[in-house]
């Protein structure tokens, strides 16, 4: 990073190799939008180039890069008001190794995550997927370590509730197609 700070472009390539997939996952899990996520990742690296002088040597680089990543997202939403809701085509790519039941579960989990308010989702993504330590998150969000832990606990509780609700909601729908084949639609049923 020091080399980037002092102006050698090639080293940014190394940083890109190391961070572009994690950053992409941070954004895609947060926004559920792949194209936007790729755009934002590009924006982060452009900002690293532009603002590299603002990096303080000796401070953790990861925290700095996530700070930039959060700001880039906030600025993006300031410019373009959000209208993004979760849509099925944004569901995560399901790996072929997954069994049918597992991929069903993955899809539900993804929906449950996307239903959460963004701050809660962000803290889960940072701690679970980006594997940031709680004190790193505290520094990043500018709050106490204790607050981070409380927020994470609440976020997990909410995710669990969302997931359960979806699971319950799914049960009748799962039986749906099979029933339709054998029984005529209900409105005819009423006439009989």
């Amino acid at each position: 990073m020091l080399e980037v700070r002092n102006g050698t472009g090639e080293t940014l390539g190394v940083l890109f190799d190391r961070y572009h997939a994690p950053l992409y996952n941070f954004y895609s899990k947060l926004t559920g939008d792949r194209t936007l996520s790729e755009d934002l990742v590009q924006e982060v690296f452009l900002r690293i180039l532009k603002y590299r002088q603002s990096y303080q040597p000796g401070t953790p680089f990861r925290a700095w890069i996530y700070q930039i990543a959060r700001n880039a997202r906030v600025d993006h939403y300031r410019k373009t008001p959000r209208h993004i809701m979760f849509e099925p085509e944004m569901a995560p790519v399901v790996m072929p190794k997954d069994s049918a039941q597992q991929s069903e579960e993955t899809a539900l989990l993804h929906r449950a995550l996307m239903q959460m308010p963004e701050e809660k989702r962000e803290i889960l993504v940072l701690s679970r997927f980006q594997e940031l330590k709680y004190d790193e998150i505290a520094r990043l969000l500018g709050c106490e370590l204790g607050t981070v832990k409380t927020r994470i606990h609440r976020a997990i509780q909410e995710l669990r509730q969302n997931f359960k609700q979806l699971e319950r909601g799914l049960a009748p729908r799962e039986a749906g197609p099979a029933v339709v084949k054998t029984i005529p639609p209900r409105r005819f049923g009423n006439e009989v």
Partner: protein
Amino acid sequence: MKCEEIGELLPDYLQGSLKAEQDELVEKHIAECADCREDVVIWKKLSLLPVEQPSAASRARFEEMLQAYQTGRNDRATAGVERAKSASLWNWLRSPVGAVAWSAALLIIGIFSGVSAGNYWGNKPTRSNANQEEIAAMHAELANMKQVVVLSMLQQQSASERLQAVSYSRREDQLDPQVMSALVHTLRYDGSVDVRLAALDALSRHGAQPQVHKGVVDALQEQQSPLVQVALIDLMVEWRDPDAAQRLRNFVQTPNLNPTVKQRADWALSKLN
């Protein structure tokens, strides 16, 4: 203990940073309390969500952005100062694009002078041997230059440039040992699957060379990408390598081997036996 108290410990429990006795407290509570247990379960389930890979275009966009940024900066720097301008020209000549341009220019000069020398001296039989030698020397020089270009391009950050380097190397029927070992190195350690596959393809035509042969066969054990693994296995079958069967038998034992790759290796073994 109450759920709220456990809730304070839970995040640390999930990251595995609790002391042993607190760990036990949480586990005891989880065994009794369904809600808290499900909190732990959902946290673990999050690992089901796949790690997504950005598209390949993302890297190319980054390279473009970097280049545009640097060009912009160079332009600004050279605006007033003549010396800086010559420095950037020098940098350009030293860059891979410059290197290709250089060698192309030298190639043209070489061919031109070679042809005109041939025409000029061709009528005088006494000198023709000397000329042929000279032309041969020029050819050797050119081949050498191409190798330097290939070698320097294989070192590039950009995967597309490394791909280009691999395809340049395929134009030669005879591979220089240095280029060959660079290609073997690329096959083993290049970060991009595409580049590794291209290198394997280029090397597959030189299987008769013991160095290539060994490099390719050795590469199998280290490969992580199923695509490259399958390509390597196919090539080993094609070459009918004497110790391929032994290697494949060892390879099949690798833990967590991709099922498709394993199937291919089993197929290859049945072919070889």
